[in-house]
Every structure is written in structure tokens, then in C-alpha cells.
């Protein structure tokens, strides 16, 4: 297991370096001279060419690109992603501060998606072509076709305005997290449900299932012990991807529900042209997604010993 973890880490390192390169190069897309912009904010007026030149030299902008990258990477590795133009706070602090809030709704959303999708997917596979199967197909198609931002407002209309069960926006109580998580969960459950169904069907066709059944194993232990466990391997990849997708999708959902997560932070940063924050967001999220992938990979090893042993 230890060697398995090491191998995965060795694979991730070059990808992380690539992510840092992408984040570094993104800054070049922003219009205008960073030194000039920084000075303008500091002085509150247009800086002269001489002033800009001095600051350019101070900021190391005259160095060759590889040198600038290495300097930036060194700062990034020591936790310095620059300071936000908008708040003057260190970028990393703001991101790390907001990230758990986003994790809350994404995690809650993932749980909801699992709670909706996996039972329905299994039932659809077991009672194939039955009413549950058709119902789940319609739900999955609609779930995949409705824009999340529209679903969010439909939920507000139904659960807040019509029924008065949940608060509309904010983050004071746990009730505030329900609708953002539900919005993410509905979108995420669609593909998960269809995949559970097709993988379950695949598994149910296997010889070992027939053998187990022939030996007289009851249908509950058969489904849970044999079929579901083997279905979990492809599902865990998709669960990882869904979770990553929900962290990304949180951008829209957080904006609608005023949920103070990392998504709302970056959308606000975009409108304020807070470039260090946008750049920090990319490398922060890139790193987070790599770690999620790593956890999913390690999860395979736990669920399926074949994978762990095969890669020795």
C-alpha cells in the first residue's frame, strides 16, 4: 500500500508543476502592466513612466520569464500567492478561509446526490424496463438538462416563497446550506444514477453472481455484498469527478444563495479585476482537485485489493 501511494504521488508531481505553469501564465492574459496597476492603486493617480519603471524593476517584471516563474513558484510553495488588490489581505488566507464553506455545500450536495442516485440506480437496474426504471430515466434526463441556476430559483420559489420552509439566502444557520446543496445534488445525481444503473446491470450479468445465486444466496446479501461492492469501483471514480464538479459548480450556486464560499469570492474578484486572487484561485483549486483524485485513487485500493496488488 505504501508503494502504491508513492507511485501515485510521483505521477501527481509533474501534473502539479503543469498546474502552476498554467496559473503563472494566466496572469499574462490580464490587460495592462501589473506594475502600473499596482502603483495606480497605491497612489490613486496615473503614475509617471519613471515611477512605473522603478516599480517594474522592484517587482522583478524585467526578469526573463523562466526566472519570474521560478520566483513566483518559490513564493507559492512558501504560501505566498500575493495580496488581493481588493482587500489587501494575503490571497492564500482568503482562499483557505473560504474553502471549508464551499466544501460544506459540495460535501452535503454529494451526499444528497448519492442518497438520490444510488438507490434509484440500483432499483432501475434490478427492475429493468419497469416503472422505476422509466421514472429514473426521466429524472436523470431532466437533471442533466436543467441549468443549475434555474433549478436554484425554482427551489427558492417552491421551498422559500411558497412553502416558507427554508431561508432564501445567507449562511447563518444550517438551513441556509440546504438549498445550495440540493441544487448541486440534483445536477450531480443525474449522471450518477444512470451510471449506477448501467454498472449494476453489467455486474449482475457476471458469472459469480449467477454462481452465488445458484448456491442459494438470498437477494439482499447478493445485491449488497456481491453486486454493489463490484459496482462501487467505477462509481468511486465518478463520485470523485462529481465532487470536483460540484466544487466548480459552487461558483454559480454560491453567487445565487450569497453563500460565502470560494466561488463567490472569485466571482467578486473577477468583477473587481482582482488578478492575484483569480490566479491564486486557479492554483489553489488545481491543487485541491489533485488531492481529491489522489484520495479517490487510494480509495480504489481500499475497495478493490486487485488494484492495489496489480500495481506493485
Amino acid at each position: 500500500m505504501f508503494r502504491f501511494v508513492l507511485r501515485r504521488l510521483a505521477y501527481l508531481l509533474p501534473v502539479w508543476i503543469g498546474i502552476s505553469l498554467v496559473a503563472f501564465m494566466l496572469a499574462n492574459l490580464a490587460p495592462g502592466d501589473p506594475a502600473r496597476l499596482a502603483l495606480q492603486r497605491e497612489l490613486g493617480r496615473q503614475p509617471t513612466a519613471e515611477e512605473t519603471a522603478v516599480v517594474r524593476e522592484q517587482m522583478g517584471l524585467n526578469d526573463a520569464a523562466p526566472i519570474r516563474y521560478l520566483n513566483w513558484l518559490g513564493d507559492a510553495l512558501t504560501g505566498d500567492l500575493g495580496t488581493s488588490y481588493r482587500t489587501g489581505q494575503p490571497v492564500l488566507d482568503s482562499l483557505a478561509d473560504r474553502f471549508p464553506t464551499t466544501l460544506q455545500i459540495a460535501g452535503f450536495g454529494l451526499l444528497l446526490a448519492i442518497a438520490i442516485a444510488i438507490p434509484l440506480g440500483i432499483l432501475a437496474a434490478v427492475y429493468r424496463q419497469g416503472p422505476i426504471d422509466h421514472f429514473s430515466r426521466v429524472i436523470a434526463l431532466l437533471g442533466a438538462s436543467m441549468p443549475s441556476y434555474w433549478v436554484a430559483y425554482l427551489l427558492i420559489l417552491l421551498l422559500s416563497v411558497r412553502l416558507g420552509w427554508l431561508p432564501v439566502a445567507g449562511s447563518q444557520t444550517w438551513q441556509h446550506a440546504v438549498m445550495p446543496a440540493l441544487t448541486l445534488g440534483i445536477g450531480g445525481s443525474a449522471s450518477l444514477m444512470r451510471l449506477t444503473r448501467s454498472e449494476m446491470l453489467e455486474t449482475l450479468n457476471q458469472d459469480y453472481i449467477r454462481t452465488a445465486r445458484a448456491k442459494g444466496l438470498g437477494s439482499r446479501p447478493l445485491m449488497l455484498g456481491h453486486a454493489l461492492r463490484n459496482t462501487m469501483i467505477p462509481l468511486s471514480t465518478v463520485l470523485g469527478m462529481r465532487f470536483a464538479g460540484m466544487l466548480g459548480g459552487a461558483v454559480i450556486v454560491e453567487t445565487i444563495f450569497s453563500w460565502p464560499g470560494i466561488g463567490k469570492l472569485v466571482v467578486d474578484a473577477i468583477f473587481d479585476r482582482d488578478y492575484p486572487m483569480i490566479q491564486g484561485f486557479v492554483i489553489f483549486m488545481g491543487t485541491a482537485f489533485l488531492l481529491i483524485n489522489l484520495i479517490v485513487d487510494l480509495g480504489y485500493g481500499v475497495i478493490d485489493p486487485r488494484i492495489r496488488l496489480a500495481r506493485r
Partner: protein
Amino acid sequence: MAHSTTSAQTASPPLRRPTATLAEEWRPRRFASLRGVVRDRSALAGLAILVTVTLLALFASVIAPYDPTKLDPTANLAGPSADHWLGTDNLGRDLFSRLLYGARWTLGAAGLAAAGIVLLGVTVGIVAGYFGGLVDDLLMRLVDVLLAFPSIVLALAIVGMLGPSLPNVLIGMVAVWWVDYARVVRGLTLKVVQNDYVLSAHCCGCGSLRMITRHVLPNVIPPVIVLATLELGALMLAISGLSFLGLGAQPPTPEWGTMLSDGRLFFLGAPQLMMYPGIAITLVVLGCNLLGDGLRDALDPRQRRR
């Protein structure tokens, strides 16, 4: 010169039936099963939705009773009537006309982005698969890196750096979404170049450019078109999502995501401002998904609905 003519002749029979030479999963009988799409009622329904909406978008200027941006302060937030079939928005603009013109923007943006994505993905995929070596290694490492992000994160950052506007959203989408295509095309290219006719064309002095355009490209295009159809719905959701956030099409453009965003302020008193564009997006994306599912079922029997 004589050599290249010969090569074109030896290779022309497979070119006329490109499917015959495709890699394992693209044998012609799979294409015969494309007829399955026509028989598949839900895929046909998806196609019907897309064709209808495309026609409505193309003929928007003929069908729409009003200019989609014309203000009518005397008739703001009016309900449905003979004059305004779906009513008007907060500025008195005719909702039906805006929806029709909105189809142009929403479908047009997704189509344009899809074209850019396919162009870039196919180019990179063929270059990586055909030339191999260091070029392949570098391009595939780039693909690995881009695949490490959910597409929305990087697209958002690119739009953030360039500044909010619809063209920048399209740039962001193309810059992020081409990677899947590059991977698929690279794999197909690797299979195509193993064929004997490629070797014979090579022996006859066929150059790289000619080889790619005459022998490789016809073989990779059909699966790419299927992939693009499968992803068109998701692409549309992503683009209108960014427009909804205010990063894409700017008001008064009647893009559906922008319209939904504009309707937010009035959603308690006039929920129809958000309902219509929402229904329109859902319907079109549903069409893409139905058609995409049908195409995938017809082409990949393993995934066929059982």
C-alpha cells in the same frame, strides 16, 4: 509527382468508404446501426427539438413580432396578450421576440465554441498522434494538466483575466474543452497510421500534410462529430451559466442565460421572466442529450440501453 498520384489512386477506395478502414470500433456495421437513431423515438425527438429551435433561430427576424431590444415603457411586465404572446419584461420588451433572438445567441455561441473546440482538439490530437515522440509527450502532459481542473474553474479564470464578454467566454471554453477531443483523436490517429494503406501511401512518397488531410482526417471526423453532439448540451449550459453570472453576453443582448439573470430582480412578482428562458434552455439541452444518448447507443453497443 507521379508518385503522389499513384498514392492517391491506391488509397482512393478506402477514402470513398472511410468507415471501412476505421479502427476496431468504427466498422461500417456500426454506422448501419445509425439507422437505430432514426428508429429510437427519444433520439428522434431530440433531433426534432434541435431542428425546430435552429429553424426558429434562423428565421427569428421573420417570425418575431417585435425588435427584441425595443423598449415600451407603457407596457412593462405585461401579461400574455394578443399583442405580446408571452407578455413583456420589466422594460416592456416583448418576451417572445427576445426568446426567438435569444435562440440565435445561445445556439450560435455554443455552435461557435463547439467548432473552435473541434478544430483545436482535432489539430492537437492529430499532431500528437501522427508525429509522436517529444511533441506527443509535451502535448499529452498539457492535456493531463488541463484535465486536472473541472472545466468551469479554468474557463472562469480565463474570462476573469481577459474581462467579461461573450467572445472572451468563447475563448475560455475553447481553451479548456478541447482536451477530451485531443485525447480521442490522438488515439484514433494512432490506430489509423497502423493501417497498410498508410504504409503504402508513405512508400509512394506521400508527405505528412497530404497523409493527414487525405488519410487520417476522414477517419477521425465521424467519431468527433458524435462526441461534439454529446457535449453540446453541457457546453450550452456552461456558456449560458457564465452569461448568467454576468461574465458572458451583456444586457441588452437577449441571450437566454443573460435574460434569466436580468429576470432575477423580478422573480417574486414576475417569475415568468425567469421561467421562459429556463424552459427554453432546458428544452434545447434536453434535445442535445436525447440525440447524444441515441448516437452513443447506436455506435457503442456496450452502452446500449438494455
